[in-house]
C-alpha cells in the first residue's frame, strides 16, 4: 500500500520521504529517474559547451568575417553569420557562459535568501514568523521585471553581479514560501521533537535534522529560480539594458532585432531562442523528476492507468469489476480489483 501523500498544493507541506539512511547516495535519490537524468544530461552538455567554448568553435564570437556577411548556415558557418560576418554558432556557444554564470549565481543567492528566511519563518512562531511570511508575500506580489528594469537602468554600467543580485532579489520569494510551509510541518514531527528533548542545539536541529528533509524542496526551488533568472537575464539583454559586452543569448536577439534580422535572417534569431527553450526544458525536466520523487502519485498515476487499460479496464469506470485471476489457488479464485487501482495487484513486481 502506498503511503498517504499529502494532497496539499505546492505551497503547503508535502511529505518528503524521510531519509532514514544518510549519505551521499540518498541525497541524490531525487535525481534518480529518467526525467531528471535527461534534464541533467542536457544541462551537462550546455555546461561543457560553456567551459570548452574556444575548442568547439572555429571563430571567436566577435570576430568579423567581412567576406561573409548575412550568410545562411553552411559548412563553414554552422548557424550562418550576422550583418558583421560574426559566426552565430560561436556567439551561441560563448553566450552559454553568460547565461549559465548569471543564472546559477542568481539561483544560489536566491536559494540562500529563501532558506534563511523560509526556514527561520517556519521554525519560529508568533509575530516573527508572521512578519517574515508577510515579507515573503510582498515579494511574491511585486512584479519582478519592472523592478529589475528600473534598478538596472539606474546604474551606469550594471555589473553581472548586480544583475544576478537583482534577479535573485526578485526571485527568492516562492522558494521561501514553500520552505516555510515545509519547515512548519517538520517542526512538530516526532524526530525533531525528540532532538529538541535531547537538548540538541538549534543549529544542529536545523542543519542535521531538518535540512536533509528539505533538500528536495530546496533543489526544486533552486532549479525554478535558475529558470526564472535565465528568462529574466535574456529579457533584460533583449531590451538592451544589460551592457552588450556581456555576451549571452539575449544579446544575440537584441543585435538581431536592432539590425533587421526579422523576419528573413532566421538563422540569426531562431537558434538563440531555441537554446533558451532547450535549457528551460532541461531545468523543467529536472524539476518534474523532483516533483515525482516528492509525490510518487504523479508518476504512478499514468503508469497505473496504462496498466489497467492494458488489462481491459477503464480508469474512470464506476463499476468495480470482479475478475478471475488465472493460475491462482482455489481459495483465491477471484479477487476484486478497484478500477482506480487503489489497491495494488498481488502480482505487481
Amino acid at each position, binding site marked *: 500500500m502506498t503511503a498517504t*501523500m499529502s*494532497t496539499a*498544493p*505546492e*505551497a503547503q507541506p508535502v511529505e518528503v520521504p524521510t531519509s532514514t539512511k544518510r549519505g551521499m547516495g540518498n541525497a541524490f535519490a531525487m535525481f534518480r529517474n529518467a526525467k531528471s537524468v535527461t534534464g541533467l544530461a542536457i544541462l551537462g552538455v550546455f555546461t561543457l559547451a560553456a567551459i570548452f567554448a574556444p575548442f568547439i568553435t572555429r571563430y571567436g564570437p566577435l570576430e568579423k568575417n567581412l567576406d561573409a556577411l548575412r550568410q545562411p548556415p553552411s559548412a563553414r558557418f554552422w548557424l550562418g553569420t550576422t550583418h558583421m560576418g560574426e559566426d552565430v554558432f560561436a556567439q551561441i556557444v560563448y553566450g552559454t557562459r553568460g547565461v549559465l554564470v548569471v543564472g546559477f549565481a542568481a539561483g544560489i543567492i536566491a536559494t540562500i535568501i529563501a532558506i534563511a528566511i523560509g526556514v527561520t519563518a517556519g521554525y519560529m512562531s508568533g509575530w516573527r514568523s508572521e512578519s517574515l511570511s*508577510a515579507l515573503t*508575500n*510582498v515579494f*511574491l*506580489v*511585486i*512584479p*519582478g*521585471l*519592472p*523592478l529589475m*528594469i*528600473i*534598478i538596472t*537602468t*539606474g*546604474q*551606469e554600467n550594471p555589473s553581472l553581479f548586480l544583475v544576478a543580485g537583482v534577479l535573485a532579489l526578485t526571485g527568492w520569494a*516562492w522558494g521561501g514560501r514553500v520552505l516555510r510551509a515545509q519547515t512548519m510541518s517538520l517542526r512538530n514531527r516526532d524526530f525533531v521533537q525528540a532532538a529538541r528533548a535531547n537538548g540538541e542545539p538549534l543549529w544542529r536541529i536545523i542543519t542535521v535534522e531538518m535540512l536533509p528533509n528539505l533538500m528536495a524542496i530546496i533543489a526544486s526551488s533552486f532549479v525554478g529560480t535558475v529558470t*526564472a533568472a535565465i*528568462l*529574466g537575464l*535574456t*529579457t533584460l539583454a*533583449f*531590451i*538592451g*539594458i544589460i551592457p552588450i559586452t556581456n555576451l549571452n543569448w539575449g544579446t544575440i*536577439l537584441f543585435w538581431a*532585432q536592432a539590425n533587421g534580422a*526579422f*523576419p528573413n535572417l532566421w538563422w540569426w*534569431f*531562431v537558434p*538563440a*531562442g531555441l537554446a*533558451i527553450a532547450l*535549457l*528551460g*526544458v532541461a*531545468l523543467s525536466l529536472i524539476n518534474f523528476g523532483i516533483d515525482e520523487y516528492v*509525490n510518487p*502519485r*504523479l508518476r504512478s*498515476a*499514468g503508469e497505473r*492507468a*496504462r496498466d489497467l487499460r492494458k488489462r481491459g479496464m477503464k*480508469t*474512470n*469506470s*464506476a463499476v468495480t469489476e470482479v475478475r478471475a485471476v488465472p493460475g491462482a489457488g482455489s481459495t483465491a479464485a477471484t479477487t476484486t480489483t*478497484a478500477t*482506480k487501482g*487503489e489497491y495494488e495487484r498481488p502480482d505487481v513486481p
Partner: protein
Amino acid sequence: MNTLRFLARRIAFYLFTAWAAITINFFLPRFLKGDPISAYLARNQGTSPEVAESLRILFGLNQDRSLFQQYIDYWGLMLSGDLGRSISRGLAPVTDVIASALPWTIGLVGVATILSFVIGTSLGSIIGWRRGSRLDVLVPITTFFSTVPYFWMGLIAIAVFATNLGWFPASHAYGRGTVPAWDVNFMLEVIRHGTLPALTIVIASLGGWILGMRNMMVTVLDEDYVTVAQAKGLSPRRVLTMYAARNAVLPQIQSFALALGFIVGGTLVMELVFSYPGVGKLLLDATAAKDFPLMQGLFLVITLTVLVANILADVAYAVLDPRTRQTEA
C-alpha cells in the same frame, strides 16, 4: 466572526503590501546613480516651481530635510495623486501618461490571462482525468512553449503570421489612420490587432496551468470522496466537474499570484515587440529616455494593479472554498 477575521487578515496583508510597494518606490530613486532630475532642471530653467518641487520630493533632492520629512512629503504627494511629471513627454503629469496606456495593457493581459487560465485548467483536468492516455503528450509540448521567452515567441509569431502569411497586423493596437471611437468597426480593428499578442501570451502561459491542474487532478482523483462519488453511480462527467475538478482548481487560483507577476513581466516586453501602446511599451520607452519619474510611477501603478488582481483572485478563492471563511488562511 471567523469570516470577519479572515477578511481583516487579508485586508491587513493588502494594505501592508501596498505600503511596501509605495515605500520601495520612495527608495528606488535614492539608489540610483547620477541625478537625472537636477540635470533636467538645470537645463530647463523655465520649469514651474510646483513641478520642480514635486520632482525634488520624489527624487530626494531636497537634501536639507531629514529622510523622514522627505518620506512624509512623498506620502503627501501620493495621497494627492501626484506622481510627478514625465521628463520625456514635455512634463505631462505622469498620472495622465499612464492613464492613457493602462487600459490597453489591462485589456490585453486580462483577456489573455483569463483565456489561458480557463483553457489550461480545463485541458489539465481532462489530461488528469484520462491519465496515461495519449493526451499526456500535451504536457511536455506546452512546457516547451512556456520555457520559450515571450518576446521571442512574439517575434516568431510576427515573422510567420504577420509578415509571411499576412493574417494579422504586425504591430500597434489599431490602424495608423484610425481615430479611436466606441463603435463596432473600431472594436473589430482592436480585436484584430490584439489577436496575435494575446494568442502568444496564451500559448506561452498555458503550460503552467495545464501542469498544475493535471498534477492536482491526479492527486485529488485518489481521494475517498471521488471513489464514493463513483461508487454511488454518479455520471463520470459529474464526478469530473463537481467532485474532482472543483477541488483541484483551488491551488490553481492560489498560484495565480505567482503567475500574474510573471505574465505581467512577459507582457511588458511583448508590448515592445508588437509596439502595443500599453504600460510595458511606455516603461521601455521611459527606460531608453532615462525618464525616471515616469518609470517610478509605472512601477507603482503596475504593482498596485497586480495587487488588485490578487484581491480579485482571493475573492474568487473565498467564494469557491468555504473553508477559507471558517479557518485561518
